[in-house]
């Protein structure tokens, strides 16, 4: 008779808790320095601290981070948590206030306390917890019902050299109101900005959200945006990224009610040693909703692009219209693109398509243009501009569109 011994190994954790230590060095001084806060926020901070200590900084061992190695670039931060300033102009009809003054608002509390399950598909939420731990800076933007704000709300962040920063934007567009937000980030120096944004769109609301990120190429820019789109509401986003040594744009959109739509457009223009990561999760939770993801990446030098996008169609979300396409253009041999387009569908009556392509500039149009006298560099620039232009198509404001096109031109001239 033989006996088999079965040794059960503990399940291997993808987390590296020890990596949390660095960034938490500033914690005691940070909490000692902030004024009285509501108990729910104190609790939130504590529970996130516990979560973060358990997980540490995300490493490529975590599925949702397998292409993006954050740790080497951020492990030097931790002695200092800098203050990030969000500056904006005044726009009539919009309530804009510092976050700390709005903590008594139920909807703000609800947005901040929303539970984000770990490893929620692609949008791993460790950075969210890190934001909770150091929650202090930020603003709240609220548009009252039925207000159509024509003038875009422009805002920018400024971060000084050498520190870790985190800020929060909590945005609500109430019933049938409309708003356009234009973010412009171009801080100089070496820093890590970990930005978190909550967006709540009530029924019939529309938010056009443009973000231009051209932070210094020594910086790290991580962004997590959590969007709830209500009945017949529309979230229309354009993320334009040319900056940072490493940037990660995590977006999670939940289409909560019938007729909700989101259009996630992104352009990443990267060169040198830059890494640009776009990681999207769209949750279709209700019938007759529409989602579009349209991401264009241009890579030169030894740049590295990442696209991870998932459309998750829950069982009640019949008649879903989900579209996703990542297209990347590789301009040099050293550049690299990683993509992971995914669909997860539990409803049976849906129309979904997804895909990712990576390629080089077509030689035929290049030669055609050259044969008309256009030099090779300009011909390439024209083709790249055309490649990117599609993600600006939804922008109604011609001035805004032109300024984005100019930014593409400027990038090409560098």
């Amino acid at each position, binding site marked *: 008779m033989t006996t088999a011994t079965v040794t059960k190994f503990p399940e291997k954790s993808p987390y590296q808790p020890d990596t949390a230590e660095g960034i938490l060095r500033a914690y005691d001084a940070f909490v000692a320095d902030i004024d009285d806060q509501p108990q729910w926020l104190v609790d939130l901070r504590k529970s996130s601290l516990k979560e973060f200590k358990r997980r540490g900084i995300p490493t490529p061992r975590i599925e949702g981070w397998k292409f993006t190695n954050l740790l080497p670039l951020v492990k030097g931060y931790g002695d200092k948590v800098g203050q990030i300033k969000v500056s904006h102009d005044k726009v009539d009809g919009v309530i804009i206030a510092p976050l700390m003054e709005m903590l008594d608002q139920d909807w703000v509390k609800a947005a901040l306390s929303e539970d984000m399950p770990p490893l929620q598909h692609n949008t791993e939420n460790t950075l969210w917890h890190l934001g909770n731990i150091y929650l202090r800076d930020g603003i709240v933007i609220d548009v009252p019902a039925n207000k159509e704000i024509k003038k875009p709300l422009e805002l920018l962040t400024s971060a000084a050299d050498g520190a870790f920063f985190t800020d929060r934007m909590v945005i609500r567009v109430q019933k049938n109101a409309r708003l356009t937000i234009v973010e412009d980030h171009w801080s100089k120096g070496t820093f890590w900005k970990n930005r978190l944004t909550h967006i709540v769109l009530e029924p019939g609301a529309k938010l056009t959200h443009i973000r231009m990120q051209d932070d210094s190429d020594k910086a790290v820019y991580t962004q997590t945006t959590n969007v709830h789109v209500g009945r017949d509401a529309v979230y229309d986003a354009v993320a334009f990224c040319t900056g940072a040594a490493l940037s990660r744009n995590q977006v999670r959109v939940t289409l909560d009610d019938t007729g909700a739509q989101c259009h996630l457009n992104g352009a990443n223009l990267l060169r040198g040693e830059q890494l640009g990561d776009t990681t999207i999760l769209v949750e279709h939770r209700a019938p007759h909703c529409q989602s579009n993801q349209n991401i264009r990446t241009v890579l030169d030098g030894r740049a590295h692009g990442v696209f991870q996008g998932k459309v998750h169609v829950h069982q009640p979300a019949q008649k879903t219209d989900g579209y996703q396409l990542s297209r990347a253009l590789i301009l040099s041999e050293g550049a690299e693109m990683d993509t992971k387009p995914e669909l997860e569908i539990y409803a049976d009556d849906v129309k979904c398509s997804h895909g990712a392509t990576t390629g080089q500039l077509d030689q035929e149009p290049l030669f055609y243009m*050259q*044969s008309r006298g*256009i*030099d090779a560099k300009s011909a390439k620039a024209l*083709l790249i501009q055309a490649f990117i232009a599609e993600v600006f198509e939804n922008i109604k404001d011609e001035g805004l569109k032109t300024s984005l096109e100019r930014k593409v031109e400027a990038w090409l001239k560098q």
Partner: protein
Amino acid sequence: MLQIKNLHASIDGKEILKGLTLDIPDGQVHAIMGPNGSGKSTLSYVIAGREGYEVTGGQILLDGQDIMEMAPEERAAAGLFLAFQYPVEIPGVAMTMFLKTAINSIRKQRGEGEIDALDFLKLLKKKQAELGMSDEMMKRAVNVGFSGGEKKRNEVLQMAMLEPRMAVLDETDSGLDIDALKVVADGVNRLRNEKRSFLVITHYQRLLDYIKPDVVHVMAAGKIVKTGGPELAAELEKTGYAGYAA
């Protein structure tokens, strides 16, 4: 104008042009006819400077100057133009912008200033009208959604806008209906003058009834195998290329 001497060219190690010689004086129209695959388009690409062809021997001279080392855009600035057998679609690049960029690039290479925006539009309108092309087409992306015939007209429009001194037309007549053929031929004829030369590649005598050539060449297996007057085209129409096997 254009002199080609004993040109040998290959692609992917396969020799296509095998000692081709051609001399087109100022102001003349030369036609090349020849069976499919004889290397006519290859010749046009090599003249225009397309990458990927290895020129293993011979010379191409434009006004006595060797153009072999010149980039395609430099050749365009020197006055060369190629009307493509298969015009290329360029999604996202609008016709008007494309034409203006082309004109200004050529002017820049020649040390001239940019064309006045109004002058450009006037010129474009005039050429459009001559070739029966609508404003709407000019707003579209280059060749995108153009029919086969429209693409060919568009080649002639570009030629008319860029005013080259030496134009190579590669089967510009193929895919054109009878009326369009006449429009396109008129477009070419309007540009004819004692300084400007044309090399017209075609399979059909009909085009040459409209654009009267000075000289007709027969090309087979990468070489010019016979040269004659316009009557040669009529003869080929009857006999085909049977007698010209390489």
